[in-house]
Every structure is written in C-alpha cells, then in structure tokens.
C-alpha cells in the first residue's frame, strides 16, 4: 500500500504557472487524472515521477520526498508518454536491462514475468523498432512492471492504441489496481476513464478542480439541473404530474424524440418521485435516461465553471 502525497504544490516555468497550489493524495486503486490540454497534467506526473522539482510544496511517496531521491524508484514504475525506447534492443533485452538497473537478483526471471504479464513473450526477441505502437506500449509497460512496483504512473498510456489494445491495457490496469497497487493514469478519452477509474482527479488551468467519484461529483453540482429524457406510455399526463412537483424545474415535449425533456433541480427527490408517481398513475416508463450524468458532461461542467 503506497500513497502519493502532493502537498500545496506549485510549479512555474518563468512566469507561466503550470501547476497552481495543488494538494491531493493518491492511494491504492486506479485513479484517472483528467484535464484539458495544457492544464498541467504532464507537469504533475513529472513531479510525481521525480523528474521535476516542485517550485513550492512537496511531493512525497509514503512520506519520503520524491525529488532527487533515487530510492523511490524501487517502488515506482513509470510509463512515459514519449515513444522513444532503446529501439536497437529486443524487448527481452530491454526489460532485462531494466531489471538489472533495478538491481534485481534474477533479472532474467523478472523480465520473463513482466513480459508474460503484458503478453509480449511471443515477440520478445524482435527488435523494438519493428513494433507497432501497441506493442511498444506493452514493452514500456513490462519495463515498468519488472520490479513489481507498488505505484504505477502512466502518462497518456492509451495514445495511439487500437481498440483491441485499449481493451487489453484497460484490463491490465484494472487488474493492477485490484491487486492493491496505486495506479495513476492521465487520459483525454473520458469514455475510457469512465470504464476504468474508481476515482478521478481533475486539473483545470493548473488548479485542482475536483476529486472523487465522478457521479458523486455530479451530485455535488447542485447549481446544475440534471437533464433527463423520459419516454412513457402517456407523456402528457406524466408531464402534468411532474411539473407540480418541486424537484422539477422545467419540462418540454421533444417532438422528434417523442419524449419528455426534464430539468430536475433536486436529484434525489426527482429520482425517487418519478417511479412512484408513474406507478401510482399507471404510466409505463420506457426510458429514463440522464443526458448529463456521463463523465463527459461532468468534465465539461468542471472545465467551463
């Protein structure tokens, strides 16, 4: 169980502030780091990886300072965003070298374990420069896993992967998280983050915008009515009873969709009221579909707030 602590961290480059007074704690499980381009995600990951000193504040790993502390790498595995590796090596040579650099007692065996984890043994004796993007990504992954780290930092790991490779990597990260490792990855693909991460950290313009389960974050946005699309056996009657209820701010009939579009101001009251009232009036509900509950909506609310 390893915890990354980020305490009042800022990082500036000249007058440009990339990370602005961020405090967060990343614990075991899978955490997604989100933010628009240029929000400071890479800077933050670089600081967690010990590649960049915070201008102020402290980045720690189980209490130990990360910057200029090579010993933390015994517990940290890093999958960098950049593609370059030692292309003139085979994956096996590359991962063995990484194991040796970690000073592992049996580098060969450790490398085989790591390559097996990412299912790359079939291609381990080919030079890395013959690999596709997805294979490279897995070789990078193997090198990060070879010393069995308790922390994994991945910067845009899904970049350039095809659908099947994405599914495989997602499965692998999920497994790593389930084993109790602290897995932090950044991504722009909200669909994937939604499927993978228990927990998200959102950074906007260098500031820490939100933290937690995105659905719970959504519920905290009490100033944003929840939008619903509801289809029923009797839309007009349903609309009439709903509009009388305090949880509902507005209803309109969408003729193209043949459904009701509802704005609910009190999420809890509305979701409980709807099935009850429908039952009491004998209205059959076909579709009850929230249209801004997805991570995508939550994210865009956070970014534009």
């Amino acid at each position, binding site marked *: 169980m390893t915890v990354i602590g980020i305490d009042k961290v800022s990082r500036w480059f000249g007058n440009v502030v990339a990370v602005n007074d961020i405090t967060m704690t990343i614990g075991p499980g899978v955490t997604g780091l989100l933010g628009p381009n240029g929000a400071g995600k890479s800077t933050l990951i670089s600081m967690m990886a010990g590649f960049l000193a915070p201008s102020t504040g402290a980045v720690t790993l189980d209490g130990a300072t990360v910057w200029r502390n090579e010993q933390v790498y015994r517990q940290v595995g890093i999958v960098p965003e*950049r593609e370059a590796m030692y292309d003139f090596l085979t994956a096996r040579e590359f991962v063995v070298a990484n194991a040796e650099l970690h000073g*592992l007692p049996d580098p060969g065996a450790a490398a085989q374990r790591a390559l097996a984890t990412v299912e790359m043994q079939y291609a381990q004796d080919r030079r890395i420069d013959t690999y596709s993007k997805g294979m490279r990504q897995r070789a990078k992954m193997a090198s990060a896993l070879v010393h069995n780290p308790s922390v994994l930092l991945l910067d845009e790991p899904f970049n350039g992967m095809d659908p099947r490779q994405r599914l495989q990597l997602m499965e692998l990260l999920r497994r790593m998280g389930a084993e109790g490792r602290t897995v932090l990855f950044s991504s722009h693909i909200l669909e994937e983050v939604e499927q993978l991460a228990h927990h998200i950290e959102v950074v906007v313009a260098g500031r820490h915008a939100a*933290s937690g389960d995105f659905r*719970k974050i959504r519920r905290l946005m009490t100033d944003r009515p929840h939008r619903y699309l509801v289809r029923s056996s009797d839309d007009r009657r349903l609309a009439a009873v709903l509009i009388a209820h305090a949880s509902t701010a507005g209803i309109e009939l969408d003729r193209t969709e043949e459904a009701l579009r509802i704005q609910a101001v009190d999420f809890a009251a509305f979701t409980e009221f709807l099935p009850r009232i429908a039952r009491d009036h004998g209205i059959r509900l076909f579709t009850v579909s929230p249209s801004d509950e997805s991570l995508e909506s939550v994210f865009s609310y956070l970014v534009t707030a």
Partner: protein
Amino acid sequence: MSATTATRPPGPPRPPAGIPAAGSGTGPRFFHPTVARLTYRGLLGRRRALLLFALPALLLVIVGAVRALAGADDSTAHDVLQGFALSGVVPLVGVIAGTGAIGPEIDDGSIVYLLSKPIRRGTIVTTKLLVAIGVTVAFCAIPTLLAGFVLNGNGQRLAVAYAAASAVAAVAYSAVFLMLGVLTRHAVVVGLVYALLWEGVIGNVVPGARTLSVQQWAVAVAQKIGRGDLISSDVGLSTAVVLLVLVTAGATWFAAHRLRGLKITGEE
C-alpha cells in the same frame, strides 16, 4: 459551483504480491555494467557509428597515400599525425562518441529508463564517460598508432607519442563533449564548431589560444614521449597534465550535476 469533495471509496484490499524485491543495497559507484552495455550498443547501433569507422579509415587511406608518395619521412609523419590525426580525427571522433553517449537519449526521452532507477546519476555519467573514452581511444589512439607505424615505422617514437597524445586527448574530449551532450540539444553542432574552429584552426594559428587547447596539452604529453625535436608544445608538461585533469574532472562533475537537475516533462 459548490465545493467538490467526494469521499473516496476504500481501495482494493489485497496488497501487491510482494513489495519490491530490494536489490543488492548500494549499487556500484562509478561503473554500472548495464548502463555501459546500453551506452555502448547505442553508440555503435545508431547511424552515426558509421562516422566512427569512416574517420579512422580515412586517416589510414591518407596515411597510405602519403607513405607511397613520400616514403618514410619523419617530418611528413609528424605533420600528418599532428595536423590530421590529432587535430582532426581525435576531436571529431570525440564529438561523435562524447555527445553520442548521452545526447540522443536525452533528446528522444529514453533517458527516463535510466533515471527512473535506484542508481545515482553520477554513476550514470561516469559510466557513460568511461564508455565514451573507451570508444574514442579505440577509434583514435589505435588508428593513430597504426598510422605512425605506416608512416615512418615509429621513427623518433612518433607513433607511440601521438597514440599516447590521442588517448590523453580522447579522455578530455569525451568528458567535455559528454557534458555538452547533457547541456544542449545542439551538442553535435557546438562540438563540431569547437573541434573544427578552435582546435583545428585557431588552436593551430592563434598563439594565445593554443595554451587553452586540449590538443596542445596532448602534444605536451607527446613531446615528453617522442625523441628528437619535431614535436613541440606551447604548454609545459606539468601545466598540461594539471589542465587535462581539471577539465576532465570539472566537465564530468558538471555533467553529473546537470543530470541530477535534468527536467523531464511530456512532449511539450
């Protein structure tokens, strides 16, 4: 927007199968064989390695032509060894090997695989330096020795003297260019300008600059070894040795210092 703090769910229960298998405690201090292997393969595995072979080959071709033209002539041998081998081939090979030992890795970002390991960064620098020195010596001092024997059969011990000078210069050049490789992405260009202009032209022409030229320090060593009075340096041997050691150690320390503070961010 209201404050957003959601409680996080408890993490998955099981700890990792085994917290990192600790290595052998304190690692090697000056030389890490794996770093050396990666460096060495990187140097000889990239396209610029061709230049490492081309320059000594060119030296030997020219030397062969000169020998055929002029026979075994001490003065000619001295001119070629100093004017072409020591002031041309050695700095150029030094640039390629010195910057090539670390520059490309920093440039393409693959250095993170070395830096994200429990290894002192000083060790990475000294290991890479040793490899660069080895390569430079192999591709300079040995061809120079051969060239000397071809030219005049080691008359006045010129071959040995200049081979030794090449080796000494190789050490200093490797350190200086390795440092350049850490400092700037344009290390090869800066290094070439330095090698061609300072060492090749100014160091040979402007008297004052000669005291501050690795080449002249190396010549001081050659002067000590060679017989006869063909070889002459503007710098005394002891000054030369002190300067060589200072430059080598200083450059190495500075490279290590900069590598410790090397910032690595994403693509931008």
